[in-house]
């Protein structure tokens, strides 16, 4: 069930280093929001605060609020493990569990949750693999290791693994940057389908990709190296690419950055 994300006044640190400063934004359910911006401006950091993965890094610390519908993820009594079960994540480099079969990879999240009936498992795995457009390629070798697939297939396997648990939100950090153009297109199509059911946030360095897949685009920037990253603007993707309201955004998009 897709949920709305409502971030207010979010600041994140690595030890004493402030990586992102005072970010507020709203992400609507069943939409795709793209994060763009120069390297080091804190896109990954911000994305990882949305499922409380940031604090896994030694020294990682967060101030501010992230509301998922009406629940603050950073409220005192919230268990980060529970948050990560409802906010799924796909990483830049495909990272299927190397020691698990394709089937077990997809089933891993379900087995953690324990919220399924035994006889449903195969069905959910198939549905997730179909949802990730991978079923036809792997249906004959579900018991083979997931690390034996191609990079693009591995990434779709990771997407299948993430959607198998029916998360409220799906976060993707440059999911196509290690992939060839055909696998990239396959995943972009997939994102278009997945937004019917999930709230999707995707980090990308590829402007065309942001323009193709997203409904809204957020531009992040930093004033100088070592300074914290800031949200410059967030708007409808068409507006950002055609007629942004901030000059820095236009410079970045048209390649006149720096």
């Amino acid at each position, binding site marked *: 069930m897709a949920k709305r994300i409502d971030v207010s006044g979010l600041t994140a640190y690595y030890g004493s280093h402030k990586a992102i400063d005072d970010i507020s934004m709203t992400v609507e359910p069943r939409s795709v929001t793209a994060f763009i911006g120069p390297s080091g401006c804190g896109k990954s950091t911000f994305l990882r605060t949305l*499922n409380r*993965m940031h604090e*896994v890094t030694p020294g990682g610390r967060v101030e501010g609020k992230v509301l998922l519908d009406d629940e603050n993820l950073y409220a005192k009594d919230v268990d980060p*493990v*529970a*948050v*990560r*079960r*409802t906010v*799924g*994540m796909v*990483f830049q*480099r495909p*990272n*299927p*569990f*190397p*020691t*698990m079969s394709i089937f077990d990879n997809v089933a*891993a*999240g379900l087995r*953690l*949750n324990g919220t399924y009936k035994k006889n449903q498992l195969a069905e959910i795995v198939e549905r997730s693999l179909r949802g990730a457009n991978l079923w036809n390629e792997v249906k004959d070798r579900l018991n083979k*290791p997931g*690390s*034996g697939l191609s*990079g693009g297939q591995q990434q779709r396997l*990771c997407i299948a*693994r*993430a959607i198998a*648990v029916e998360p409220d939100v799906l976060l993707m950090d440059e999911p196509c940057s*290690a992939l*060839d153009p055909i696998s990239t297109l396959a995943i972009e199509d997939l994102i278009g389908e997945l937004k019917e059911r999930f709230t999707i946030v995707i980090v990308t360095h590829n402007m065309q990709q942001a323009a193709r897949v997203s409904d809204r685009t957020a531009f992040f920037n930093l004033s100088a190296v070592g300074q914290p990253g800031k949200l410059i603007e967030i708007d409808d993707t068409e507006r950002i690419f055609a007629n942004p309201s901030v000059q820095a955004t236009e410079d970045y998009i048209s390649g006149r950055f720096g």
Partner: protein
Amino acid sequence: MDTATTTSAPPPRAPQQTGTTRGKPRPGDRIFLGMSRGAGIFLLVIMAAIAGFLTYRAGIAISKDDANFLTTSEWNPAGDPPVFGIAVLAFGTVVSSVIAMVIAVPVAIGIALFISHYAPRRIATPLAYVVDLLAAVPSIIYGLWGAIFLVPYLDGLNSWLNEYLGWTYIFEKTGEGVARNLFTVGILLAIMILPIITNVTREVFLQVPKMHEEAALALGATRWEVIRMSVLPFGRSGIISASMLGLGRALGETMAVAVVLSPSFVISGHLLDPGGGTFAQNIAAKFNEADEFGRDALIASGLVLFVITLVVNGAARAIIARRKEYSGANA
């Protein structure tokens, strides 16, 4: 993933470059090649000489043995006719090593996980250092400590085991005497091999790529679930290798066993009964007073220990190789 770049055709070389690489090897290369090849051959020759010598002497002893060398529970090469066999030694060696492994491997994995994944840095670093130090303690120290401290202490444990677990047969105590038995030896060996297994597995656990752990974390895994899903599977072959290192040490341990065990040439499934022996302990105990034929007999027993070690290592390699496609090496 990046095969596209590696399979693309190499840029054409300048012709003179091919000339130099195809030409005469430089003197430095030739000298180094000669030296490394010579060293390799030298090593092989020495090893072959040792193996040949040992096999020859062992052959002399076994051919004159009046009893079955593998199944006899007696050691009397000086008798007429000579009667000796390794049954007790093989049994004692295997049993004490199995006890040591059963105790040491799980504990070592636990300590290694604690150091690598649970303990805060300021506890983990000194703890790792202490374990490193323990691995360097000479075995005679462990042996003396075992004989002076552990044996009296284990007397109590032995009575307790006998009372409550005596029905399992192995913990039934049929004779009197202090705890100078195979069970104590097993525990002492476990303590001795614990540091080395801990060190190696800890290193392996620290090598687990962050992305594998984050894969589990992002699915909502607890710390223990991350360890189960990512750390242990990744470290599996490392755990096996570390255990083999420890097992090698346990199988061949001499002084500590010799100091603690009160040996006898009886096979008993009651682990708490005093007696038994191991290959290394038997050699150490008998070598000095043996005549030349007696030494040949001891050498023959040593060869058997060597074969056992080889078989165990081969089995471990086979286990590692069987799961190779799942090892993550091709991820």
